[in-house]
């Protein structure tokens, strides 16, 4: 399992391929890979968003992501996982976060991937500050829950 916090733009598809190549010894054991990629929108709360800055708590960001990933490995039968989270200045269409989980069967991969992503949204110490097209800047107040959406 691996956790990375990166400053610059990253290509999630290349990261997945690179990581999957590095776990080639598991290839015959893997029956499922579940992938979540979060990207930046150009709108939020009815406003056009020009860019965003993602602040984090260096050290605690890595530590909390590792705790979350270990919890997922304890709860589900998964073979490996990869989490990449971007920080710094971001523009719409850029990837913000990647969660990839490999397992023997799809249920574990789906559930663990969802768990890691939802736990990250509520516990990993990252904060978004949006810059609107009007140049007004505002901190995003809180993340919505990904569960129970209507």
């Amino acid at each position, binding site marked *: 399992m691996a956790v990375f916090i990166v400053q610059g733009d990253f290509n999630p598809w290349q990261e997945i391929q690179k990581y999957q190549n590095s776990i080639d010894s598991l290839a015959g054991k893997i029956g499922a890979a579940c992938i979540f990629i*979060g990207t930046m929108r150009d709108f939020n709360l009815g406003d056009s968003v020009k860019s965003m800055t*993602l*602040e*984090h*708590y260096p*050290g*605690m960001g890595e*530590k*909390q992501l590792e705790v979350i990933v270990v919890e997922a490995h304890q709860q589900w039968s998964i073979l490996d996982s990869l989490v990449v*989270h971007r920080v710094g200045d971001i523009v719409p269409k850029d990837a*913000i*976060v990647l969660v990839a989980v490999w397992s023997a069967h799809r249920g574990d991969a789906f559930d663990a991937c969802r768990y890691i*992503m939802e736990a*990250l*949204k*509520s*516990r*990993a*110490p*990252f*904060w*978004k*500050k949006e810059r609107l097209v009007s140049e007004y800047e505002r*901190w*995003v*107040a*809180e*993340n919505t829950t990904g569960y129970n959406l209507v």
Partner: protein
Amino acid sequence: MSIKVRYFASLKEKLGRSEDNLAFVEVLTVRDLWGGANPQQSLPDNILAAVNMEYVDLDSRVNDGDEVAFFPPVTGG
């Protein structure tokens, strides 16, 4: 006892600083530490706290050399 206090995101902007290095004689809780560092500012309702990069309750005790952080709800991902 010597304690480093760090602030992040909107809280850092509101307070106008990112950290304090404080010296105290007696053992404190995280809540007490906030009062010592920010006597003019009440503790925000939705604030989160960490000691040595792990989440804690506001009534947790702080030890010499700890790094204590206060920050608003997280919005990553």
